């Protein structure tokens, strides 16, 4: 009886100990899931409403991003034969900064959210 109790106590102690020393220190912050995407709505609210809102910039939800590839000295939208006005200054030999939009861009909800 005493032996069994001792065994139980030892198991609980080891479990609690293990919980404390498991390597939290290398914990990742990479998690992403449905709740991450669901939280995009609250992120939008936080950026647009109240004291925490960004001033002087529009908050926009992105639908898709197409890489702008560097091609023959010009940067063009992938798969596109046309070069927009914004892209026409993107000669790889240029020293000008690449244009960046003023909008605060955030990802939209996942496709499953539209069902």
């Amino acid at each position: 009886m005493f032996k069994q109790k001792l065994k139980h106590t030892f198991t609980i102690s080891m479990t609690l100990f293990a919980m404390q020393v498991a390597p939290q220190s290398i914990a990742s912050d990479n998690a992403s899931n449905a709740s991450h995407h669901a939280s995009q709505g609250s992120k939008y609210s936080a950026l647009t409403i109240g004291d925490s809102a960004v001033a002087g910039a529009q908050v926009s939800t992105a639908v898709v991003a197409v890489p702008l590839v560097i091609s023959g000295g010009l940067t063009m939208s992938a798969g596109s034969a046309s070069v927009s006005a914004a892209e026409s200054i993107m000669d790889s030999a240029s020293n000008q900064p690449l244009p960046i939009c003023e909008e605060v861009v955030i990802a939209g909800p996942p496709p499953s959210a539209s069902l």
Partner: protein
Amino acid sequence: MRKLLFIVLAALSLKSAQVHAGSTQTGEPKFQPKEIAHFAKQVERYSAAKRAHVFIIARVGQPQDSLPKGVEFTHVALAVYSQITMANGEKKPGYAIHNLYQLHDDPAKSSLIIDYPTDFFWAVEELKAGIAIPTLAVQKQLLDAINDEVPKKVHNPRYSLIANPFNNQRQNCTEHTLNIINAALYKTTDMAQLKANTQAYFEAQSLSVSPFKLFLGSVFRDEIYKKDHKGAVNIATFTTIKNYLAKHNLLAHSAIITPDMLLNAQNSQEM
């Protein structure tokens, strides 16, 4: 015995909940949303001023003093200069971030997700970004690789926080980024070839966490897998990738961006 089992299970589920709360991107932001958005835009502008079309970007999601020696950032991805179509149909230029994210509800799995700088820095511990901009020639190859869907081809969804970059048993965000870089450089997605080249030229970071802690972590947390390592645990980090590029003359510029750094850079320009 039943009581004992209940206590152990309850304790473990509590621990599991704590781990998830501490490891999700969905946590409450630690900074004002406008501060995060402003910092994210500053990182974009800094990179755009360097004319970076694609670069390695890193963030800090844990308190610095809780990270193992030699690990300065907790998440690494590729930032890609893109034409972004907004929900209202407008097309605007900016950076999209190509991530490998650990799944919250299945921590031993990952998926590839594109988000944007404000999303990327939303739940950071510090407003601090690591950026490593490859040479233009490497950027061109990276863009070709991205357009050829190489990130998908070199993705292994079996996740480990401490994945060994020298084999493909498990993968984390940093190893995936390294895979894309090497796939772009060598123009192959043959994993055996990529890993042979990684073994030959890449210097990983030795992880200074006690073997006992790692053992317990591998027992109690699905996302900590140690069996892909033989002996010491070596991982890829932002710094080791940056050093790899620099050593082989493939790095154009690197920086650690903080609000102070940006302020100092601004002041020195004004002087």
